[in-house]
């Protein structure tokens, strides 16, 4: 999956980083994969992520307990489990959004390939550019047009020198939204339907060209048809990105993911190929959950 030729490309880091930051290599373009796939878009490899001994707290509440888990590149990993099991907290530790909550902190090693994203020398904004996130509720920026919402990723991240129009079109195509909105790019993003808004948020995320996309129950506010579209999109996107999705919906995990991790009370119970986990779970807890005994 990795291409050694691309290792010397360096991820953009702001000048103010106090020490030389660890280099996060740029994405890899694979001509072979491109020929096999959609010719319009470059196909690139995502990156693997791993957790080693992750613990997370909200104040004194121990929400995530000693989780070690690896997310394979260009696969969809689903994190499932009952409410309050810590799956969303794990997700928020993956792009360091957890630390934005007052009183919250985490310990343990989180890596993107072999780079520790919690390394004090790493710029947190660079981490979040490399690891994008789609939220539960569609949340386009209310003051911005459709176009500006997609371009916002570039502007907010301070990325300059790219052809904004091209990036916006490519991102909207990537999110399967281009044909629906190309004639009204100047209209406000919040005027779209819920499903379209969520795909707009996905377009906004991929405009920054991350390596990994985190999704926090991206379909829980959507109707079944919009959900189906987003799920199809997830399957499309994994060719270019590593996807980690938190979901309440067992069927959704079964439909979209390659591997599934089951969490219970802040602990990782089981992580296996999705088919294995749903058909022959190793742990009785998992079995009870996936067969609907509790949720």
């Amino acid at each position, binding site marked *: 999956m990795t291409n050694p030729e691309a290792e010397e490309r360096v991820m953009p880091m702001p000048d103010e980083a106090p020490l030389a930051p660890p280099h996060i290599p740029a994405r890899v373009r694979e001509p072979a994969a491109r020929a096999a796939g959609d010719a319009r878009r470059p196909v690139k490899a995502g990156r693997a992520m791993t957790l080693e001994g992750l613990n997370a707290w909200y104040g004194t509440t121990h929400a995530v307990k000693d989780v070690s888990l690896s997310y394979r590149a260009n696969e969809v990993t689903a994190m499932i489990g009952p409410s309050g099991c810590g799956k969303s907290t794990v997700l928020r530790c993956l792009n360091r959004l957890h630390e*934005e909550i007052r009183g919250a902190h985490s310990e343990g090693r989180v890596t993107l390939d072999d780079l520790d994203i919690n390394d004090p020398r790493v710029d947190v904004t660079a981490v*979040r*550019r490399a690891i994008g996130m789609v939220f539960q509720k569609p*949340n386009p*920026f*209310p003051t911005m047009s459709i176009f500006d919402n997609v371009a916002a990723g570039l502007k907010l991240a301070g990325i300059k020198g790219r052809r904004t129009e091209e990036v916006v079109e490519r991102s909207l195509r990537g999110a399967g939204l281009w044909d629906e909105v190309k004639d009204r790019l100047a209209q406000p993003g919040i005027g779209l339907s819920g499903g379209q808004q969520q795909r707009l948020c996905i377009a*906004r995320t991929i405009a920054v060209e991350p390596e990994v996309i985190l999704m926090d129950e991206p379909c829980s506010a959507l109707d079944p048809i919009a959900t189906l579209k987003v799920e199809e999109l997830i399957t499309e996107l994994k060719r270019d990105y590593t996807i980690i999705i938190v979901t309440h919906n067992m069927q959704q995990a079964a439909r979209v993911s390659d591997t599934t991790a089951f969490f219970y009370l802040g602990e990782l119970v089981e992580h296996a190929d999705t088919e294995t986990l749903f058909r022959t779970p190793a742990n009785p807890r998992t079995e009870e959950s996936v067969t609907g005994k509790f949720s």
Partner: protein
Amino acid sequence: MTPVLAAISRRRRATDHAARAATLALTLVALVPLFLVVYYLLEEGLGAFSVSFFTTDPTGRFLGDPGGIRSAIVGTVLIVVVATAIAVPLGIGVALYLVEYGRRSAFANVVRYFIDVMTGVPSVVFGLFIYIVLVVSQIGGTFAAWKGAVALALLMLPVVARASEVVLNLVPDELRESALALGAPRWRVVLRVVLPTAAPGLLTGSMLAIARAAGETAPLLFTVAFVNGVSLDIGQRMNSLPLQIFNDVGQAQDRLVQRAWGAALTLVLMILAVTLAARLVQRRSRLQP
């Protein structure tokens, strides 16, 4: 046998009627002074209105034509503009600190407490404070319009800060998080997402503070002093509507008292215009409390 759905008892119906009547009566009593103020303002004030009332300055002569209130209108607008230029950026800055950075920290709570204390300080105290600090000390002369503007700004500052804090708190955290998740530094999140989203509300809060400050007399009394003519130099004394009213009401001539009524009506109409504008802006805001 009692029916399943019993009829309302006579007593409950009577209590209900009495309670309705009582609250209605109290509301009407509360409306009486408001109605009277508006009535007398229109009755006395409209009589003073004429073209020359708005286009001439007070002459200051004891006999003959007393003149209009042009210099007072110009002065009030100028002083309030300067006060706004000081208070609004400061107040929004304080609110941004409290909401985006200070949040629940001890220092932020102390700041909040002092803002509340400042809101309760009578305006005459701000006037005296500026009188001692800026007028008696003769910084840049004695009485000057900008000193009055500073006194008004002190009065406006806590109002703007508090109103802005409320509005900034209405900006959903999900918006901040999604901007942070795109790799934006905090200051850019504030500048490009939080402030534009909150802008209509911030404008409304500022305009209400302006409306509050525009009618204040006490802060100007010891700081700006009264003159008759139009002055556009904020380093000099300047006329203003509250001072014009204050001066004219105390005069023994009916013509001057009537000018005070006219000036009062003008002031009320100006403040009403600002308040209405604030309401319109609020209605267009996407953030509803």
